[in-house]
């Protein structure tokens, strides 16, 4: 479904991605692992159009995405849940969800909102509250729910576990798996390699802008390099 080939991205003079290639098949959860600065977030931002690659290609089901504006890419079925959640703090929960559906012209937005409330019942209780008053976990739920409102075929998740208590992280990853079972393909960037490899089908390891390793998640868990660098032994 997503085909990334030899991606090179620069921040001014800094060469941040040095030829990353990977693919995500329909129905998969694929995770990108790597330390801070390895280029995980940069990769997601390039897929969703926030950054322009200097070289390389990003293809979604055969269509080239590089050079399109972010809002056009959303319309093609890619939703990006950014690092740090980035909910709109002074919009209500309901209004935040509505922004997620901005690109939609078809289908019932009410139905999708009900679906988000089934996945995250807490959001329903707080639907009229300003999003800035939610707890970190609730904000993450809102960010994911808001992304789902676009009815994406491919969901990009950047660090959904960041700053959250272990029990909340567990809940969120269970929901991520059930979203995947409903047919949404997921590309996951995560610092928490243990949980990322537990829920994903395949993974890639990034280091300073390059892919250095790839494989099935079940195999990567036992890989020495991954164990040493990301699983703490």
């Amino acid at each position, binding site marked *: 479904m997503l085909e990334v080939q030899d991606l090179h991205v620069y921040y001014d003079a800094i060469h941040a991605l040095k030829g990353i290639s990977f693919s995500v098949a329909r129905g998969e959860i694929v995770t990108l692992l790597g330390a801070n600065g390895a280029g995980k977030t940069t990769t997601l931002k390039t897929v969703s*159009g926030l950054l322009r690659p200097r070289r390389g290609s990003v293809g979604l089901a055969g269509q080239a995405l590089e050079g399109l504006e*972010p809002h056009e890419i959303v319309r093609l079925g890619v939703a990006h849940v*950014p690092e740090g*959640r980035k909910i*709109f703090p*002074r919009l209500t929960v309901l209004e935040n969800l*509505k*922004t997620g559906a901005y690109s939609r012209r078809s289908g019932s937005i009410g139905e999708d909102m009900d679906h988000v409330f089934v996945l995250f019942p807490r959001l329903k209780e707080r639907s009229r509250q300003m999003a800035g008053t939610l707890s970190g976990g609730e904000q993450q739920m809102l960010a994911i729910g808001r992304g789902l409102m676009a009815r994406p075929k491919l969901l990009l998740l950047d660090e959904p576990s960041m700053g959250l208590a272990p029990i909340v992280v567990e809940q969120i990853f269970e929901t991520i798996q059930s979203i995947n079972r409903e047919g949404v393909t997921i590309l996951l960037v995560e610092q928490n390699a243990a949980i990322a490899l537990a829920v994903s089908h395949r993974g890639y390891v990034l280091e300073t802008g390059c892919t250095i390793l790839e494989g099935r998640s079940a195999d990567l868990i036992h890989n020495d390099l991954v164990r040493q660098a990301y699983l703490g032994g």
Partner: protein
Amino acid sequence: MDLALSIFFQVLVDGIVLGFMYALIALGYTMVYGVLEFINFAHSEIFVIGAFVGVEILLGFEASGSLAMLHPAFVLLVVLFAGMVISGLAAMALERVAYRPLRGAPRLVPLISAIGASFFLQDFIRLVESLWRNSFYLSYPTLPSLEKSLKIGSAVEVPIKSVLVIATALVMLLALHLFVNRTRVGIAIRAVAQDPETASLMGIPVDRIIALTFFVGGAMGGVAGVLFGLHYSLINPYSGFVPGLKAFTAAVLGGIGNIPGAVLGGIVLGLVEAFAASYLSILTNGAFGAEYKDVFAFAILILILIFRPKGLLGEKVREEGV
């Protein structure tokens, strides 16, 4: 006693009228600041464009002899609507030509462009009117039905003109409130104001929303321009400068970027000014006259900037990080 009371009410009405006018103009400053974090100093000329559109249409009606025949409510609707749309379009064009190419430049750059655009528009209006009417000092034709007054009780008279300004402003403010808070596009405007990058990830076309924000802010300014002309009659291409600065003050007073704040700031400023203008000479035994009223507006601006830069209802416009 009766006289003092009736003066008080007149001053109150004048202050409210002035305040609503400032409020309508201030919305343009504050909404644009909301989405771009920059002061559109050419907004005062967008206001003047509205005033000139109004006077041209009325003079056109007058020249064709239809001004007396048409229903005054119809005339007013046409004039207000035309001023609104043309000022809105002018503001959009201004954004496209003078600001969008500078997106991403250091903050000072679009500000200088705004000041340049302001001068350009002033003298462009002057040029057009000089060629077309051989004069750029124009006065609104009198509409007899606006010259009457509404009597409330025995002491208080409210001019119909003032009622028109207040009623129109209230309708515009209500419409804006519903638009910004209840519609899909209104929510998108607020989302862009809070975090443009994330808004684009939601599928919101940020450039189009910014252009639309200019249109809406410009439309409010255009209506204010027509109301200004109808109320005070005399206009020239430089008429926008002082009201523009005061409306900017009102926006800062209320909290720049904050829509209800702009309205509150406008009303407060209008009242302060009206009361200062009429009571200052009484209170100081004539030592300071009405001409000192502007001192109050700008003293407020300075004091607010020093002691409460985020304004009365101020909030941080854009969140950093998480």
